[in-house]
């Protein structure tokens, strides 16, 4: 009997070859992402061992790239903590110190430029009116007569629409209320940016550039570690700092003390005092996003 010719060997080989070609093509477009990183699972499904390995590899990679000893942590949320923020509209003078303190702390790309905080200048006569606000104001001195200032950043909503629309669950709300992004899982579809009513999410259209001298080597995996091209990033209340017990960078820099931060579950915290004693508002209340970021009038 004649043995049938077996084509499957060649067919299989060709199929695998084409898969390999497509795979390597995809990877080559990702620049600095290694095969291991490409195949990495969603952060929330990783075991302790896998996380530790990934973090060790990242620290090595960043240290080599920026020539500084890098630390990456995955410090989880503490029990009994829910972060809240309050900003005193009667004090803010629109000096933008917070914007740049944030950029520095959170390793945002300098070029193309990404800034988590947008300070909106509004006319006192019009009140809070986004349509007529200006983010590009640039006078010699601030505050200007007849204007007030509304800094806007991630409002860390209790009902976040950005996490709802993410098709791959690359962004979620942590138990302490901070909405974070797994940069390695993000596919860059930018649905979350379309969903956010506060313009608080930012996309890395280009390879992020940060001068090595200005890089902050103390980082959190879900926060200020260096990002890659093609992923979305956002304010995390300085997750690295606040999980260590410190105030966010924008709170510490504010020259007029307009920014307040604390634990909403602690009745003794300054944030609870503000909610109990001051006139408080949230932005776009009608959208039912339920922000943890409050604006208040201190006087």
């Amino acid at each position, binding site marked *: 009997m004649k043995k049938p010719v077996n084509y499957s060997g060649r067919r299989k080989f060709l199929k695998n070859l084409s898969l390999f070609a497509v795979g390597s093509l995809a990877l080559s477009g990702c620049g600095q992402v290694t095969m291991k990183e490409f195949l990495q699972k969603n952060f929330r499904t990783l075991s302790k061992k896998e996380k530790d390995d990934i973090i060790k590899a990242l620290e090595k990679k960043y240290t080599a790239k920026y020539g500084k000893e890098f630390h990456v942590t995955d410090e989880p949320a503490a029990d009994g*903590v829910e972060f809240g923020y309050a900003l005193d509209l009667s004090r803010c*003078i*629109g*000096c*933008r*110190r917070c*914007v*740049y303190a944030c950029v520095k702390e959170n390793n945002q790309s300098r070029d*193309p*430029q990404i*800034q988590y905080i*947008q300070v909106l200048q509004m006319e006192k006569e019009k009140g809070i009116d986004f349509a007529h606000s200006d*983010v*590009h*104001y*640039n*006078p*010699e*001195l*601030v*505050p200007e007569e007849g204007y007030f200032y509304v800094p806007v950043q991630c409002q860390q909503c209790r009902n976040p629409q950005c996490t709802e629309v993410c098709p791959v669950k690359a962004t979620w709300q942590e138990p302490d209320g901070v909405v974070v992004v797994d940069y390695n899982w993000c596919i860059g579809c930018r649905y979350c940016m379309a969903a956010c009513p506060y313009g608080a999410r930012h996309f890395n*259209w280009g390879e992020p550039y940060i001068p090595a001298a200005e890089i902050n080597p103390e980082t959190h995996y879900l926060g200020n570690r260096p990002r890659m091209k093609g992923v979305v990033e956002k304010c995390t209340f300085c997750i690295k700092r*606040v999980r*260590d*017990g*410190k*105030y966010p960078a924008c709170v*510490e820099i*504010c*020259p*007029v*003390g307009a920014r*307040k*931060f*604390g*634990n909403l579950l*602690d009745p*003794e*915290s*300054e944030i609870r*005092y*503000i909610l109990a*004693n*001051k006139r408080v508002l949230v932005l776009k209340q009608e959208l039912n996003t339920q922000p943890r970021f409050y604006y208040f009038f*201190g006087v």
Partner: protein
Amino acid sequence: MKDIFKTLFKIHSLLFLSVSIIIISCNDTPEVYNLGQTVTSPLEGAANKSHEEIAVSPPPFSDGIFPCNDCHAFQKPNPVRRTLTWHEDITEIFNHDSKNRWCLDCHDLNNRDSLRLASGKLLDFKESYKLCGQCHGDKLRDWKVGVHGKRTGYWNGPKQYYLCVSCHNPHSPKFKPIKPEPPPFREDEQIK
């Protein structure tokens, strides 16, 4: 035998003395006005939260002005309200209810190294917030709970308060306008 009792008694009394010294030294009230001590350990503040202790930054004296008694000790105190021919840097900018007030409403006539409350009580410069609070009571109340003014340190632990005078010039307290940081790039500026 008697000797043994004697030495035992000596040892005991020595022990008692040293223990009591240790106890006394531990009971010393800590110096709250200290920058270095206040912001040190994270995440343990919840346990030792104390509303009594107010750790403030040091008063921002201009160079060489303090202690005032270096000069004033040799001058005869003059309580008559007048325009000074000295301290021009202060008299030029003085704008703090200047119609009704002058130096000796806050500074003590006889001891210039002290501030003076309306009650006549002398006050250290480190506690100047109490003097401000005489008129600005609502601000003092908000400052004490961390709502007016600025705190740094730990949100759930030791914090450092800034004094009123760290931000407000006590002789001209209204905030002066400052230069803003540069605005963000416009979108068309980003496209290369």
